[in-house]
């Protein structure tokens, strides 16, 4: 197994600032917008973006929820073992809000497909956008593309892209792992 650094901590930080600025361009003061971190790994990115918007760009009162998609996945009974569910916590109304899904890696698009179904249980959003830190090109199974991307990556199927966050993994970095 070999691993290559795709982005180091400085590059991660630059990309995060750019994503935060792009969000402000489209969502102004976030009064009609909510962020939804996709469990399990999207929540670290969502929290980081929220923190950055609040501290560096003085955007206040950003609503952030967590969405677990386990029960909406299309691979139930197709995997060897069931996937462990995480917590869903959306304690605000999403009806007629602009929802931004936040996830770390966009690969086949199947998770986002599940998230699009799952979010309907909470109401009818005005629109849904997708922010993803890593966009793996040429690997989509479904017609789903991000609206905001940190970095586009070409990786072949047996390679894995891992996004590490300081609060969870000790440092900010993105690795390409070759099995």
């Amino acid at each position: 197994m070999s691993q290559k650094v795709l982005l180091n901590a400085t590059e991660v930080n630059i990309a995060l600032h750019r994503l935060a600025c792009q969000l402000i361009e489209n969502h102004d003061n976030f009064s009609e917008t909510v962020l939804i971190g996709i469990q399990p790994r999207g929540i670290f990115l969502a929290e980081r973006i929220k923190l950055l918007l609040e501290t560096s760009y003085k955007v206040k009162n950003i609503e952030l929820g967590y969405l677990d998609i386990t029960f909406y996945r299309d691979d139930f009974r197709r995997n060897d073992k069931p996937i462990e569910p995480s917590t869903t916590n959306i304690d605000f109304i999403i009806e007629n809000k602009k929802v931004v899904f936040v996830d770390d890696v966009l690969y086949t698009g199947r998770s986002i497909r599940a998230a699009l179904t799952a979010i309907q249980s909470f109401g009818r959003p005005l629109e849904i956008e997708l922010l993803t830190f890593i966009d793996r090109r040429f690997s989509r199974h479904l017609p789903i593309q991000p609206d905001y991307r940190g970095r586009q990556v070409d990786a072949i199927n047996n390679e894995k892209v891992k996004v590490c966050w300081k609060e969870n993994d000790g440092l900010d970095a993105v690795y390409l792992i070759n099995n």
Partner: protein
Amino acid sequence: MSELSVKHLLGIKYINKDDINLIFETADHFKEVINRSIKKVPSLRDITIANLFFENSTRTRLSFELAEKRLSADVVNFSASSSSVKKGETLIDTVNNILSMKVDMVVMRHSNPGAGIFLSKHINASIINAGDGAHEHPTQALLDSYSIREQFGEVAGKNILIVGDILHSRVALSNIFALKKLGANVKVCGPKTLIPKHITSLGVTVELNLKKALEWCDVANMLRVQNERMDISYFPTTREYTQQFGLNKKILDSLDKEIIIMHPGPINRGVEITSDVADSKQAIILNQVENGVAIRMAVLYLLASKLQKNEY
């Protein structure tokens, strides 16, 4: 994620502590789901479930059906009173006929102890026991323990009292298995005639005085007297039973602590429990019913994930 160690849920006796905890953790997530405005998830959309009720039921049947529908399964219902069982069809024939219609899971209630176990040896579907005679009622025990866990954070070390008709109660037996596996202390209380002779071999203690038993416990689970299963008289009169083993406000107020009151339903108000107790804040009877749907969703989901995967 770990899996259940079993393919069927036939009784608490046949599952282990890890299975119970896995069911509880999964039920936590489903409890959040059933409190959303849209209470449905698509997980079991390609699964068909038959509810076979050879014995009467209101709560369990509704609860299973809701759980199945909230997981998006296709559901067929069957009750013995309106079926060919009356014409002399055997259990295996009835079930095999239903399975030929491509049913993946069977939820069954039957008046004969061991009916589920018998069936599991003869058919290919996943079987969930929804009560077999005076033997076991595993999902009821799971939801009871889950409700206790919800109140106290854990079940281990808690003193749980089961009062009433222990002899005929499948709820009592399943509860004893579940509570002991989770590390609780269990005591049973009731007329001596309604307490099985060797019950202490299950690791429970017996107390014939209700007041003393209540003083010991953190939770009292009040059972119904199952007149329909009694072929002889086990106590002189219902009035005398109520005087000795009925839970009322007076006896609760005389305790020096506040205990949690549970009841698996259906309640015979004024017999094993008075209305003011059943409707008091200490009673978590309706919480039990709510938790029942989440627990049954968890059981169905976890068993469905173990169904053969080569059918696509």
